[in-house]
């Protein structure tokens, strides 16, 4: 008896330690390596505490899972809350699976075996488009099965399994297959009865399930792919991993049912190895750390921590368009754009302005308004923000609605701003901000005294012209026309020409705005102007340029080397890679 208690105690310690490791590990991973994903998920939804909003979940499957999931996602606004919520849900899943395994045989399931489906859930959370609602749907489906499995009368239980299917689908969505699969396994492995009867019942269950789904397709208006997966998205690898999760749970149940105690060491070793592989492979193949770096910078921009955003952008220096976009934007916030330009990785024009059209994903479109807003082209920022919201997964984004409020206050479009504020006032985490913004509505004198509103209003172009979506050159020229000392716009325009290798317009713009530089000319501009001089020595009075002797000497060296190497760029890379001359001769951007 004493020995038994000791066994129980040591088993309890082991189980508790494992639970702590599981929760703590997931939490630490997410909070240290993946926080940007959580912030962004919150920004891309809008949970309103109104009866209408709550009731709107009724019209789609996974009603309870989505309601609970989106309710919880709003807490992601708080630092560390997202990782904590997911870690706790993973732990709950682990306990639930252990409880379910107990229903398949009152033997020890160990700690590793039930961790396998949980590890797959963890991997799913590495995908930005994966919804917390799907995890909740899974957990709810497992929970419902567990509760049903206590119904002692097998006939009643089997009938209830059948009748519950449409309801479970409505509450949990595609996770109904988890419920149905566990029910079939339970009736075949655990419950007694004639095999033929059980087979007929299984067939009936499949018919009821599929016909229920087909009948629900019209009221829910879902495509077939959505019908089977909702709220999981029909995209690779998410859908495949989701199916793998369901299969794994089934396999775990079968393995648990058939294996005898004590579990052979070989089994434990294999399970552990598999678990490590699932987590490792998941992190390698599904984890998007490049995106995470961009999201980390983006979060700092969203929270208006511009120094931190610039620090992270420089540290990460992500070599894609979004990375370059935030690198340039955050440097522009600090007034250091030209000085830092070639110290980071440039990717062409998309590194200055992210394109806005329906070929881009919603993440890129969401980011795209930041530069227009920074520069003061609020109409372009509005267009980007509206499109970002349209393409966001729920077509409602707290972040973009906040931006639209700012834009409409700047534009004096108070009625539209008021509409957005009414929406934000019904949320938990944006209502204070909304109340603060409400004071500006229809209050022109307060707006005129408020720095951020006045500043943006002063920057707005006065010339009314038409432009296409991605006509950034026109945008920048109009901003400069309104405010010739708009340094951020000037640097963006000059860098725009640099990226285009358009030295003629670069030189023209430079000489038109030369007074801005007051003798303090960034090195990259000196380098470009030297090319301008070489191309057209009589066009301007080049002597007026405050050229550094070092730059002039280096240019001489570059041209000598260039001629000597007969234009072979590889020989020049080591010494001149960070110069505009090297860029001018050799940069060639490929579409991402």
């Amino acid at each position, binding site marked *: 008896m004493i020995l038994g208690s000791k066994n129980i105690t040591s088993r309890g310690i082991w189980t508790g330690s494992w639970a702590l490791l599981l929760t703590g590990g997931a939490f630490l991973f997410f909070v240290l390596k993946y926080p940007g994903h959580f912030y962004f998920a919150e920004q891309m939804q809008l949970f309103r505490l109104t009866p209408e909003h709550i009731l709107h979940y009724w019209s789609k499957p996974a009603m309870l899972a989505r309601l609970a999931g989106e309710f919880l996602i709003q807490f992601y606004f708080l630092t560390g809350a997202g990782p904590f919520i997911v870690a706790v849900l993973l732990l709950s899943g682990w306990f639930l699976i252990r409880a379910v395994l107990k229903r398949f045989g009152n033997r020890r399931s160990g700690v590793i075996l039930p961790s396998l489906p949980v590890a797959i859930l963890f991997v799913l959370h590495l995908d930005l488009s994966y919804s917390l609602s799907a995890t909740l749907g899974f957990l709810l489906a497992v929970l419902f099965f567990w509760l049903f499995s206590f119904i002692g009368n097998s006939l009643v239980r089997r009938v209830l399994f059948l009748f519950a299917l449409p309801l479970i689908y409505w509450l949990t969505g595609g996770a109904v297959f988890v419920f149905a699969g566990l029910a079939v396994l339970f009736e075949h492995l655990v419950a007694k009865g004639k095999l033929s009867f059980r087979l007929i019942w299984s067939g009936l269950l499949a018919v009821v399930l599929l016909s229920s789904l087909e009948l629900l397709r019209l009221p829910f208006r879902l495509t077939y792919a959505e019908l089977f997966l909702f709220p999981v998205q029909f995209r690779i690898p998410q859908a495949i991993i989701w199916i793998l999760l369901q299969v794994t749970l089934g396999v775990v149940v079968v393995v648990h049912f058939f294996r005898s105690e004590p579990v052979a060491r070989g089994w434990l070793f294999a399970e552990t190895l598999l678990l490590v592989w699932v987590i490792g492979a998941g992190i390698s193949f599904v984890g998007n750390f490049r995106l995470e770096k961009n999201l980390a910078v983006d979060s700092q921009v969203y929270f208006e921590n511009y120094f931190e955003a610039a620090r992270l952008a420089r540290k990460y220096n992500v070599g894609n368009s979004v990375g370059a976009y935030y690198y340039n934007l955050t440097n522009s916030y600090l007034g250091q754009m030209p000085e830092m330009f070639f110290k980071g990785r440039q990717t062409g024009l998309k590194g200055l302005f992210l394109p806005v059209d329906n070929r881009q994903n919603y993440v890129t479109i969401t980011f795209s308004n930041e530069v227009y807003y920074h520069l003061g082209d609020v109409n372009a920022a509005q267009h980007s923000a509206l499109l970002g919201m349209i393409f966001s997964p729920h077509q409602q984004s707290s972040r973009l609605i906040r931006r639209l409020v700012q834009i409409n206050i700047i534009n004096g479009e108070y009625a539209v701003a008021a509409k957005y504020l009414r929406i934000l006032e019904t949320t938990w985490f944006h209502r204070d901000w909304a109340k603060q913004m409400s004071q500006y509505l229809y209050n022109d004198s307060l707006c005129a005294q408020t720095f951020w509103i006045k500043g943006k209003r002063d920057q707005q172009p006065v010339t009314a012209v038409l*432009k296409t979506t991605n006509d950034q050159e026109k945008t920048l020229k109009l901003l400069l026309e309104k405010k010739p000392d708009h340094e951020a716009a000037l640097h963006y325009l000059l860098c725009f020409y640099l990226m285009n290798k358009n030295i003629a317009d670069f030189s023209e713009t430079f000489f038109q705005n030369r007074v801005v530089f007051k003798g303090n000319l960034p090195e990259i501009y000196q380098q470009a102007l030297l090319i301008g001089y070489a191309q057209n020595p009589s066009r301007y009075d080049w002597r007026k340029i405050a050229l550094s002797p070092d730059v002039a000497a280096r240019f001489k060296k570059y041209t000598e080397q260039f001629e000597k190497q007969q234009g072979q760029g590889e020989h020049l890379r080591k010494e001149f890679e960070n110069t505009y001359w090297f860029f001018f001769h050799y940069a060639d951007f490929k579409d991402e």
Partner: protein
Amino acid sequence: MNRKKFLYIFLILLSVSCHRSEIREASEEDCFPPIFPDLNEVTIPPNVAPLNFLVEGGYEQLKVELTGNNGRFTQYFKGNKTRLDPSKWQELLHNNSGQSIFIRVFAKEQKGWKKFRPFTISVAREPVDDYLVYRLIMPGFQTWNNMGIYQRQMSSFKQETIADSRLLPGTCMNCHTFLQNAPDNMVLHLRENNSGTVLRQNQQLRKINTKSEGTFSAAGFPYWHPSGKFVAFSINKVKQVFHSTGPVRAHAIDMNSDMAIYDVEQNEMFSSDVLMSEQAFEAFPCFSPDGGTLYFVSSKSGSLPEDQHEMKYSLCAVSFDAQTKKIGAEVDTLISAAVTGKSVSIPRISPDGRFLMVCLFDYGNFPSYNPESDLYLLDLHTKAFYPLELLNSPDVESYHSWSSNGRWVVFSSRRMDGLYSHIYIGYIDSDGQPRKPFLLPQKDAAFYSTFLYSFNLPEFVVRRVDISAIDFERTAKESSAEQLRFDNSH
């Protein structure tokens, strides 16, 4: 037990009597209640859903008395929004058609009750068609993601989906058009994914590819010939541009446009020199109720977008013989842009053939972004052309259509906030005079204050469109589009 019952009844009566005495002492306000939407002096059909409203301000309770010559009812509401009883509302409207209803609002705030001046609603004798079909889309200008075509029962708040992006992802759907307000003959245009024109006739759905060797693009903006044998289309090349500054956010520019007529039975499209002129852009067709005249708008062609402010469209007409499929050679200019200095678009004719309603605005042929766009009426008998001032607002009025009895018009307007378009319904009397319109009512009076979609292309239909969204999806996705022929012999 009986004692308990008596006690409850006594308490209820006591509270009601207290309530009433409080209201009797309500302070008189010498003004109309500050309600949304504005309902004072609107004219409504006798078969419309309850016109719920909210009283601006932090009111805790409302009492609303609706009084007509033939009946009245009173309702109390918690908070500042009404949710009028549909059956009592319908009964009141039915018993008072052709007359007025007076609505008195009592509103309770912390200090006590206020009593506002009663406002009036006129109930017309003529009912409106039973259903309204419209598109819901988020304003994004350049592109879209989620949208749908919906039908709304006018006597209730019930909305059903005809087609939407959930079933047809990536598909832009627009230009739903019905033959003389009946859902039996319908056209709906799909772009991008599953592109084609879905045609419904004799309960059958077909998908047609209207892009042919004779046209530079697929056809859009359809209008049915009254025989049901033809559909006139315009073929447009539309580009969206954005304004650098100011309240106008975007603009749709018609870079090129022609017109053609589709023979439904022969699956054949034909046109003529006057509808496909090199020197002019032609758009927005509309057949007269007798089918003998085709109205459209036309402008001199130009170099766009540079000349867009010079693109001013005139209202034109040409004869059409349905027997011989002959399009007249003479174009009659009914409203000349040279005279008005403005542009006309979206001609829509009343079912009796007497009135043509159009949008009049500064330039172009897509009025939905022109704040100056107003609705005008051309009386084809007297040739009088005048603004429908009671329907217009300082902001955009754009797409409009008539009810089957010709007494009601529905139009979209951005008057509420300048960005989102909403649906308004107005009465036009037999002399072509409008009355104050009302906003499409909703169950929740605050619905529009947070709704993030625009309503556009409203069209009345006399019966429910009995197509299921799944059938529509099947036709759009599974059937390969029938290629029409272009007949060059005209």
